[in-house]
């Protein structure tokens, strides 16, 4: 009976509990770190262990890292490989050709998609209860953030490195949830676009969101706010500085950012609308 049942389950891809898992993508790395037992993880990508890139790098201590090449993965004999939908297509195709099970997750564009990804990965790892618990916790926090949001949203703007801003997508959803009014939507930008110094000067955000990414590395992108015309632009405003790693992938760290947005929205309301 048990044999027949396991044989039946073996036919269903989702039902095979993966015991030896390799992840090739920064975002799947983090979901794996959160949901798997440590013994299930054979290796994660080198980015997943880098605290500048990964919000959960601290969980990766002592784990082996890979550089996303087939030759590094095959000797590990994984029974599941996690990858993003834009992970090197040749590598993923070769792994599939060699008979490895590859689970590819598209980059999440909403919190609902984050929850779906958590459920998908948890099911593949046979960690259903852990996935359910995490999703339940996230839903409670989402509700709390929404409940605490000010009635009148505070005008806000995201300034990513290079003047990139978010007009829709995940960051936009987090802002809306936390009671921030994303000015970028009225600047005719879609999911992500660049802001010029001129456009920036014409806006009147109460809250500035400036994701922090490798501040020490010299780059033109990081120096946007150093433009003479923008001297003092940030001084009079409420500034939120989430780590880029918290925003870069669909992980529960997104809600930490949303909670910080909520605080900023309430602070801006106290300061700018007494």
């Amino acid at each position: 009976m048990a044999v027949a049942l396991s044989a039946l389950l073996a036919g269903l891809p989702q039902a095979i509990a993966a015991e030896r898992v390799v992840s090739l993508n920064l975002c799947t790395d983090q979901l794996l770190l959160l949901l798997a037992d440590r013994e299930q993880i054979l290796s994660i990508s080198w980015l997943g262990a880098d605290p500048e890139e990964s919000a959960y790098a601290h969980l990766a201590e002592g784990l082996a890292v890979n550089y996303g090449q087939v030759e590094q993965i095959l000797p590990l004999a994984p029974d599941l490989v996690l990858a993003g939908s834009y992970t090197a297509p040749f590598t993923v195709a070769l792994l599939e050709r060699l008979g490895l099970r590859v689970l590819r997750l598209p980059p999440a564009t909403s919190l609902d998609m984050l929850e779906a990804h958590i459920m998908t990965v948890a099911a593949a790892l046979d960690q259903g209860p852990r996935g359910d618990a995490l999703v339940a916790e996230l839903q409670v926090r989402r509700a709390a953030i929404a409940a605490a949001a000010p009635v009148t949203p505070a005008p806000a703007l995201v300034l990513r490195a290079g003047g990139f801003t978010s007009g829709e997508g995940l960051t936009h959803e987090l802002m809306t949830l936390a009671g921030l009014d994303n000015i970028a939507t009225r600047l005719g930008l879609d999911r992500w676009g660049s802001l010029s110094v001129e456009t920036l000067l014409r806006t009147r955000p109460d809250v500035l969101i400036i994701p922090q990414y490798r501040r020490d590395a010299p780059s033109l992108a990081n120096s946007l706010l150093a433009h003479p015309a923008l001297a003092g632009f940030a001084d009079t405003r409420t500034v939120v500085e989430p780590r880029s790693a918290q925003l870069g992938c669909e992980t529960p760290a997104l809600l930490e950012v949303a909670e910080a947005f909520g605080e900023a929205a309430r602070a801006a309301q106290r300061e700018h609308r007494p």
Partner: protein
Amino acid sequence: MPTTERSGGDGVSGPTGRLSLGVVCTLLVALLIVATGLSLVLGRGAGGALWDLPALWQRDPDTARLILEEVRLPRTLLGLLVGATLGLCGAALQGLLRNPLAEPGILGASSGAALGAVVVFYFGLASAGAWLVPVGGVIGSALALGVLYLLAGRSPELLTIILAGVAINAFAGAMTSLALNFAPSPYAIMEIIFWMLGSLADRSMVQVQLALPLMLAGGLLIATAARGLDALTLGSDAARSLGFSPGAVQLRVIAGTALAVGAAVAVTGVVGFVGLVVPHLLRPLVGYRPARLLLPSALAGAVLLLAADLLVRSLPPGPELKLGVVTAMLGAPFFLFLIVRSRRQAW
């Protein structure tokens, strides 16, 4: 056959080679065997060691065989084929256009192929199957060729062909940038940019099967034009009087290049400088006649690309450096050296 010809002395186009074609080709084949062997046995595995195949073979023979047959063999074959394609097409184009700067990129074949592959990425077709990327590349290079013929087809003027190539390159480059602008996500952009830098990593026999027939067809087409290329060095009229139609020679070389380079670029991304450097490297050895240059250029191109790929693999463990970056890094200074050294003698 080139080997049966007198070794130069006929004054067709400049000085004769110092070595016989047979000696040069034998040396190159020997080098190629060494490079192929090294390419099969060296590679960074899970432990990060470059030479771990015997240890892996003892521990886990199945995986070792899989790595050898399904990872390193296609990588080596593609290095060989793409290198030979670039060397051969570079030599043929430099002969045809009588221009020392000619290389496969000049006709727009490379940038057209790159655009085709980027479009496949952009519409997310790559996730439907990696095999669609080479197909996009070949269609792109074929389109670039079609446009080239619309622009320059009726005119046998070489200058027109070169200028049309420049225009097609500029247009394809602009369209590629446009596609990047509208790419579905920053991750897609990164993937496309990395792909365009050129690499042989993790290609499989599927890519070999897709590219091999096209590369062979292109190479053969160019080979049939070899004697015509020699005749053309005397000028169009002289070639015609010797029984070669300049238009037919051009068509063979250009169509052959589009086929072979389109397939190569689609599988490996843009690997520059091999087609440019290899003929210059060999001219002092085998002489200046285009037909004599073809076979050694194909062999040397293969050796050069395998060597560059070996260098990429030998670097310390980390995200792999892209092959196109290495060929440009080594190729450009070497090319400058060649220019400085040969400035006194007319090309």
